[in-house]
C-alpha cells in the first residue's frame, strides 16, 4: 500500500474558463456542472449555476471552482490534495503578475505547442500582492483532506525570466556577457527569495499551511556546480527557520545532476520526480522493464535519505504504441493499475521502504484538457497504490 498525491495542476473546467474570459456559458457547460456536481455529491451545486447566470459574486464563483476540484480529488481517493491550481492562469505568469519589477514581453514556445508569457526584470523585485494566500484560504475552508500548497520556486522564476535590469547593472563589472548573465541570475534569484518568497511562505504558514511543495523544474538547467549550489541555496534560504514540511518537485531534468545535490537540500521532506515519461510500458519489477526508474538509485547512492514522490503517470500527449498494459484515449496514455503498481514496487525496492514512497503523476495533469481522462488516470493510480501485495 502506498500513499498518493496530486502534484499540481489539472485542466480548468470549461465553465470556469468561459467565466474568466467573460464568454457566455453554454447549456452544455451548465450540464457539465450538473454532471460533476451530482457525481461528486457536491451540496447545493445548483447555486453555482444560478450565480453564473446572474454573473455576480465573483469571489463565490472562485470558491465554487476550488470546491469542484477539491471534491474531485477527494472522491478519487488521493491522500494529499490541493486546488489543481484552478485559480492560477499558469504557474509562471500567476506569480510574476503579483511581483513588482517585472514586465511581460509576450509568449514564447516551451514544449511543443505550449507557451508561457515571458517577463523581463526592469527594476528591483518586490512582492506586490500575496501570490497564493487567497487560494490557500479557500482550499483550507473547503477541503476535508490534507493539503499541500505548490508554489513556483525562486530559482525557476529567475531562470525563466529575461533579466535586463540586473544584467545591465552587472555587465560593466563582469569579465564576459556569460558571466554577467550568471551574476544577474544569482542576484535575481536571491532577491526573489528575500523580497518575495519568504514573505509569502511566512503568511501561508501563519494561515495554517503545513506542507509547501516548491516547484523547481529549472533546477538542473545549468548543470555547473556553482549554478547547482545557487539552486540549493535558494531552496535552503527559502525554507530556513520555518517548521513545516517542504518538498521539491522537479521534472524533465537531469537526475544524474540533481541526485548529487539532493542530500544538501535542508528541510526537504520529499523529492517528487518525473519517471513515467522515461519508462517502458511493459510489466515487470526489474531494471530492464523499469528503465525509467533506475535513476532513483542515484539519489540513494549519493546519500539522499528522504522521501520520494514517484511519477507514475505520463502527463503529455502520447503517440506511440501503448502495448498491452496501457491504452490511449484522446492522445492520453492510460496506464493500467498493474503497470503503475509495478513501477511503485520497483521504486520501493530501490528506496528500501514503501512508507517513503508516494505515488503521483509526473507533473501537473493540466495538459490533458478533459476531466474524464484525468479521473481515469488518477483513479488507476489510487487503485494501484491501494492494491494488496
Amino acid at each position, binding site marked *: 500500500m502506498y500513499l498518493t498525491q496530486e502534484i499540481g495542476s489539472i485542466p480548468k473546467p470549461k465553465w470556469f474558463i468561459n467565466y474568466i474570459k467573460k464568454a457566455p456559458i453554454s447549456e452544455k457547460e451548465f450540464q457539465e456542472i450538473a454532471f460533476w456536481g451530482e457525481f461528486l455529491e457536491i451540496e447545493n451545486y445548483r447555486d453555482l449555476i444560478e450565480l453564473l447566470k446572474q454573473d455576480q459574486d465573483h469571489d463565490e464563483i472562485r470558491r465554487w471552482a476550488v470546491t469542484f476540484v477539491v471534491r474531485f480529488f477527494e472522491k478519487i481517493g488521493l491522500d494529499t490534495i490541493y486546488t489543481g491550481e484552478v485559480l492560477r492562469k499558469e504557474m509562471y505568469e500567476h506569480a510574476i503578475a503579483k511581483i513588482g519589477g517585472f514586465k511581460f514581453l509576450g509568449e514564447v514556445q516551451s514544449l511543443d505547442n505550449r507557451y508561457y508569457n515571458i517577463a*523581463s526584470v526592469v527594476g528591483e523585485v518586490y512582492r506586490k500582492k500575496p501570490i497564493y494566500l487567497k487560494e490557500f484560504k479557500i482550499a483550507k475552508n473547503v477541503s476535508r483532506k490534507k493539503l499541500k500548497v505548490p508554489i513556483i520556486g525562486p530559482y525557476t522564476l529567475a531562470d525563466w525570466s529575461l533579466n535586463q535590469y540586473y544584467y545591465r547593472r552587472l555587465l560593466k563589472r563582469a569579465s564576459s556577457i556569460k558571466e554577467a548573465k550568471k551574476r544577474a541570475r544569482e542576484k535575481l534569484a536571491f532577491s526573489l527569495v528575500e523580497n518575495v518568497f519568504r514573505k509569502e511562505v511566512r503568511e501561508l504558514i501563519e494561515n495554517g499551511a503545513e506542507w509547501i511543495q516548491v516547484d523547481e523544474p529549472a533546477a538542473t538547467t545549468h548543470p555547473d556546480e556553482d549554478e547547482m549550489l545557487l539552486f540549493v541555496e535558494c531552496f535552503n534560504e527559502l525554507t530556513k527557520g520555518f517548521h513545516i514540511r517542504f518538498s521539491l518537485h522537479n521534472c524533465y531534468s537531469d537526475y544524474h545532476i540533481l541526485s548529487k545535490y539532493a542530500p544538501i537540500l535542508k528541510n526537504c521532506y520529499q523529492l517528487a520526480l518525473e519517471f513515467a515519461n522515461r519508462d517502458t510500458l511493459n510489466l515487470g519489477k526489474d531494471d530492464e522493464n523499469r528503465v525509467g526508474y533506475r535513476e532513483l538509485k542515484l539519489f540513494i547512492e549519493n546519500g539522499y535519505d528522504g522521501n520520494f514522490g514517484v511519477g507514475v503517470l505520463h502527463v503529455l500527449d502520447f503517440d506511440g504504441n501503448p502495448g498491452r498494459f496501457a491504452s490511449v484515449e484522446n492522445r492520453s496514455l492510460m496506464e493500467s493499475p498493474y503497470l503503475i503498481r509495478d513501477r511503485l514496487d520497483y521504486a520501493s525496492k530501490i528506496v528500501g521502504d514503501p512508507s517513503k514512497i508516494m505515488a503521483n503523476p509526473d507533473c501537473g495533469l493540466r495538459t490533458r484538457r478533459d476531466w474524464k481522462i484525468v479521473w481515469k488516470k488518477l483513479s488507476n493510480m489510487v487503485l494501484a497504490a491501494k492494491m494488496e501485495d
Partner: protein
Amino acid sequence: MNIMLTVSGIHSRSRKLIEATRRFEKGELDYREFENIFLNDVKNFVRLQEKAEIEIFSDGMLNWHDLLRPLIECVDGVKCGPYFRWFETNTFYRQPIIVGKLAVKRECIRKFFKFDLLPQEKKKLVILPGPYTCTILSKIKLPDGLNIFSKIIKDIIKSLEEYGGLFVLLQEPCLVYKKYCPDKRLFSNLKDVYSRLYSDRPEKYIIHTYFGSIENVSELLSELGCWVGVDIIETSSHILKKLRKSKIVLGVLDSQSPITETPEMVNPYFRNINEIEDKNLILCPNTDLRYLPRNIADKKVLALKKIRRAMVK
C-alpha cells in the same frame, strides 16, 4: 570584406500563430484554417528577411517543435522517445530512437520545409541538426551514430534539392557544449563524416556551434573547409584567431536577451575579424530566436542590417 546575412534556427511564432495552435488543438480550427494562418506567418517572416536585406533565406521553421522532430516524424525506422530539456533552456526535445531500417519519407519533409514560399532567386537555408548532435542526443554509440545520422541528413537535403539554391546549416551545439565536447580522438571521424556530407560543395555548408566556446574544438573546426559558425556570447573574441583560415559565420545576436544588439555591442569581434584571411563573412543570430517573443526576435533580425553596415564602414 563581403558580408552576408542569414538566420540560424527556429524563429519565434507570432501571437496569431500561437493562438491558432491552441485553437487547432482544441478542435476549434480545422486543418485548412490552421494551415492558412501558419503559411501567412511564414510569408511575414520572409518579408522580414527581405526588409533586413538578408541573402540566405529561411522559412523560419515555425511549425518545428524542436530541432530533432523531423528526424522522428519523417524517417521510417525512427521512434519517438521521451522528452528531454534542450540544453540550458526552458524548451524540450523528443529523443529519436532508432528501431528499424531507415528511410526518409519525402512527402513528410515538405511539411517541415516551406521553401516554395521563399523568393525563387534567393539562397534557401536548410537548417538541420548535425550528425554529432543527433548522435549524442539520441544516446547512440559513437562513432556508429555519426554514419547513421549523416545518411539521414544527406537524404533529407537531397529530397530538397529540387528547390535549387540550397545552403545548409547544420546546428552542432554538442561540439562545444561542455558536457558533450568530443574527444580529440574523434576528430578524424568527424572530419570524414562532414566531408562526406558536403562532398564537393563545402562552400554551401555551415557547421554552426552555439551554447559553448569553440576553444576545445577549434583544431577540428579550422580543418573542415566549410563555413564555421561561432556563438559570440560563449566564445571570447581572441579565440576567433584560431579560425584564421576558415570561413566564419558569426552568431552576433543573443537569442536569450531581450536587448537588441547595436554595432557597438559587437565591436570587439570586428577587430579580431580583421585577422581572418578569408574576406567572406556571414552574420546571424547565435541560435534559434524562439526563446524571445516574436516582436523582439524580429527587431533583432532587423538589427543585422545595421551591424553589417557598421562593419563594412
